């Protein structure tokens, strides 16, 4: 049993305990750590196929729906966890569709250590060049980058660095019929420099330890973005939301990230999670073929 599985079992166990007795003893930080653990599990040694759809949204008969034909990006991603507790993640994401962006790739390293800033590289197929986006200096005030031009930013998708937040359980309530904790995360001065949010409020499913809803607030304490998680399924022993919808409440645009295929426990070469994958087309295709074979 690897470390990850141990964590999941622990999480499920604790959550069961929580339901039987009282989970009040868990602090907000502990809950969020379990949530992130869960999140990392879905990307560890994983080969996923995702679709990002972005559109301007409206309301029709009490339903939130796209008001225009959504722009669709089809992506393949490979990820693996590293570090002592498996809290650092590395992943490569490559664009399959649309044709104009086919072959564009993104490599990102997310570190749990607050002293190390996350890193991202981009590869442009039309030019055959790699560019590092976030610079390595930790003193830098890098802005959160948009994930493939969607409403998601790296700030929304990256895990780790929970110590940089003041975390507090606000209340216990229900969301979409599920029992949840409402947990507030306020960035400390250091984190605030790099964040677009003054705080976030996370609705965490008490039983499954996944976030069902996140509200993001600006400096005036107005909610500017909202994440809704849906289609929660148990995938290879891990609960995950297979449809994530990020709504920008000011521009009224949303992006939906749908996990069409999820394959975990895949053998991923460490070498694959380097810039070589981005630039060396032959290498990339060979490795990807290996991964596809494992899936089929």
């Amino acid at each position, binding site marked *: 049993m690897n470390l990850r599985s141990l964590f999941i079992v622990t999480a499920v166990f604790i959550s069961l305990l929580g339901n039987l007795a009282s989970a009040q003893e868990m602090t907000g930080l502990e809950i969020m750590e379990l949530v992130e653990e869960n999140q990392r599990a879905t990307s560890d040694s994983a080969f996923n196929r995702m*679709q990002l759809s*972005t559109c*301007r*949204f*409206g*309301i*029709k008969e*009490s*339903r939130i*729906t*796209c*008001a*225009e*034909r*959504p*722009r*669709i990006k*089809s992506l393949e991603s490979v990820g693996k966890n590293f570090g002592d507790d498996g809290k650092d993640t590395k992943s490569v994401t490559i664009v399959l*569709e649309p*044709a*104009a*962006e086919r072959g*564009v790739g993104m490599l990102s390293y997310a570190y749990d250590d607050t002293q190390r800033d996350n890193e991202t*590289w*981009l590869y*442009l197929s*039309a*030019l055959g*060049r*790699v*560019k*590092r*986006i976030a*610079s390595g200096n930790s003193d830098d*005030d890098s*802005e959160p*980058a*948009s994930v493939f*031009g969607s*409403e998601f930013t790296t700030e929304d998708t990256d895990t780790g660095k929970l110590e940089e937040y003041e975390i507090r359980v606000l209340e216990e309530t229900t969301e979409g019929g599920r029992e949840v904790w409402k947990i507030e995360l306020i960035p400390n*001065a250091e984190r*605030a420099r790099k964040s677009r949010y003054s705080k976030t409020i996370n609705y965490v499913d008490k039983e499954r330890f996944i976030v069902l809803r996140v509200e993001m607030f600006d400096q*005036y304490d107005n*909610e500017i973005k*909202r994440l809704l998680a*849906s*289609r929660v399924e148990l995938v290879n022993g891990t609960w995950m939301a*297979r*449809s994530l*919808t990020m*709504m920008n*409440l*000011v*521009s*009224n645009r949303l992006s*939906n990230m*749908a996990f*069409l295929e*999820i394959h975990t426990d895949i053998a991923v070469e460490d070498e694959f999670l380097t810039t070589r994958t981005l*630039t060396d087309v032959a290498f990339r295709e060979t490795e990807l073929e290996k991964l596809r074979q494992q899936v089929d």
Partner: protein
Amino acid sequence: MERILIALSDAFAQAPNRVLRYKQFVLTGLIVISAMMVWGIYTRTELDMTTDSFLDQEDPSMMALNEYRRQFGSDDSVFLVYRAKDGDVFSRESLLAIQQLTDDLRYWQQLDPADYPESINGIALDFDELNHVRRVQSITNIRYQENEGDTLLSNRLVPQQIPQSAEELAAIKARAMEQEDYLLAFYSADARYAAVMIQTDFGAQPIANYEPAVNAADIVLDDSFVDFDAFSDADSFDLEFDESAEIQEVSFESVDMLGYTNFHIITKALYEKYSDQFEFFPVGNPPMMEFMMDTLNQMMTLGIVMVLIFTLLLYILFRSFSAVLWPMVTIAASMAWTWGITVWLGVTISQMISLTVLLVFAVGIADCVHVMSAYFSYRRQGEDHYDALSHSYGKTGLAIMVTTVTTMAGVLALTTSDLLPIQVFGLMSAFGVVMAFFFTIVLLPILLDVWHPGAPEAQDASLADRIGKRWNELYIGKKAGLAVVYFIAVYALLGLWVGTYITVISLMTYVVVNWQLQILSYVPYIVARRPWVVLGLFGTLFVVCAYGMSLIRIDSNMTELTKEGSSIRVAYETVDENMAGAMSMVIMVDTHTTDGLYNPRLMQAIDELQSRIESRYADQVTRTNSLANIVKDTYQIMSDDDPAYYRVPEDEQMISQLLYLFNSANPEDRRALVSDDYSRSHISLNIYNAGSYQYQLFFDEISVEIDEVFAGLEQEFPELEVYLTGSMALLMRMADEVANSQYSSFIFAIGVISVIMIVTLGSLQGGLMAMIPNVIPALLGFGLMGLLGIALDTDTLLIAPLIIGIAVDDTIHFMTHYRVELIRTGSISESLITTIRDVGQAVMFTTMVLGLGFALLSFSDYLGMAKMGFFGSAAIFVALLCDLFLIPAMIMVFKPTFGVKGADTRITFMEKLA
């Protein structure tokens, strides 16, 4: 007609006694209603001082600007230019200081308020205002792109750790000078000046009670968000979409002067900490509005001094404190009702209410002075209180009514404007003028009944009378000595300009107080001796002014509205001279097609438009920036920095990926330039400060260029829209709008006044003749400005009709009275003499009070106000000269009978003089 006029005069004569009969009732009623009005003013007044409020939200330019803001956020920013006192903005000390300032502005939450003053200019510092800062860019945090092996780096121009060595600093400077996109935007070519760009969220912040529609109860995600088959072979799934879904449109919080001012004050506190190292020149809306706010405060002071001057002049001229108190009460009541009824009707008022106050004040004073002047003169002739009251209303009532109607007509013409606050202003002012008339008829007689000066021979002579008496007993030498001491003191204490102003007031008052009767009785003889000379002089004045008026240009230049050497003007001039222009403008490009901006031909058209503008309008535009610059830059850098690649690629996929890269590296920059679906973008232009007239020409030319450059793209983008917008374009559109509405208002007012004069004076000949003295004051104001090359800005233009309305009131009094006299006496000569004698005093008094009062406004730092004060005052005095000299001369020469049959047209002054 004659009978109607006589009947009306009689009705006005009986009005005071009727009112007095129900004195208690009327007074109680007025007090109760006034109290209600005051209560309404305090509880219900909604003051909207935003520039946005001036345009209808449905107006095309407003919609364009809102569209822009929804997409790209606010275009309001502070361009904080600074001059390094050590002469080099790239010196270590300069860099350290500006790095610190940049951090202060970005991470202001970490500042200690104790390090800053509590208030500046009496405005308390509020650090929370800095929430409006959206982005701060300076030399110390801008980045440049660089190739390093296979990796493209986006490095800081100035490293976080500012180097010590001179060589390293020189290298930074050299590199900076190579960055063409930053040169002039962030530092001048000689490195003496640089700038901090503070972007704000003004005008793009959702309204306070904005509630996202998705917050409503029972709102859920559409099923299609979850309805995909997990392990199907299908490559993708499609989210359903429904074009009829209702998209919420965000409304934005409007910004007023105070909001900008508070923001600028705290910003100023932050940067002034570095004033040892730098001299600062802030430009943009916030500093401009702070200046305007200062001007408004100064206006308040000037207003108070103006009321003091009114008070003092009224007291000296009438020598009775009741003559001061009662007009003030009457005017206050008029104002309270006007303001009160407006807010009770739920109408939002703008800063233009100050102009309404000014107008009601002027009209109220004129009304009261005419009545009181007549009343006092009847009392001096020995009539008792009630007779004098009745006679004075009989004499002036009709004329007051006519002036009320004409002034009303003038301001009502403003309601044809497209700008809502101007419409409100027109209606409110018209109402205020009627209120002033109403209270003069209803309230003033009661007030004069409550307290009025005794008979002239009574012992209770007022202080003014006693001082005057003692002065007159002095020897001539002593008088002269005292006068010299007085004038020296005035000049020494108040300086040249204010000193001259006070001296003029003193001399005029002295002359009028001592010799008004002599002047008035001598005037007809002067005119009678040489009526043709008088006509000739005024004719020349008319021609010269008409010529001057043909030279006038209507132009509003933001900085030329401020005095030479004022901080704001210096700031704009500095920025125009050393950096990219202080003004900015945007050209919105909306393809209405998703990914439309990846199209190489469209991108080339944008590039072409920019180079055309930069080369053809180099005297107006300093630099342009757009997505095309980004594409060209990135293309070159990604192609081993080969300058041959500094161009828009031919290939859609290439553009798409270059922009993809840009988006990933600088998402904020990208979002500020192009919409998320790449359907719309904008070209920003830095332009030099100029007047609205020049801008308007420039805008028209740019529109033509746009049409030419984008002509070939209609096939590919049938819905393509390319248009100018930005706060700047909006302001210019407002200026244009005001100029037009004022022009039509002016023409309309002249037409209406002519008709009223023709009706009142009972003859076409008389009416048209009366228009000549009415037009001359207006012509003089505009003509002088034309001759002196002073531009007529929108603010002056807005107030001009009011001043002219006030100036012609006296003429109307004069003509109306003359006509009534002509009907009564049947003799031109006799009517003229009595008219000059009876109305002359009131006309002189109102001219002095209003003319000198308005002249005070010339001292305003805001030239829009100063110009109107000076030229308005000149117009008022010229109107007096017209009344006293031109009208009598015309009557003597043309002998109009105003439809009075069998009038004696013989001129008999000379005989009398002989």
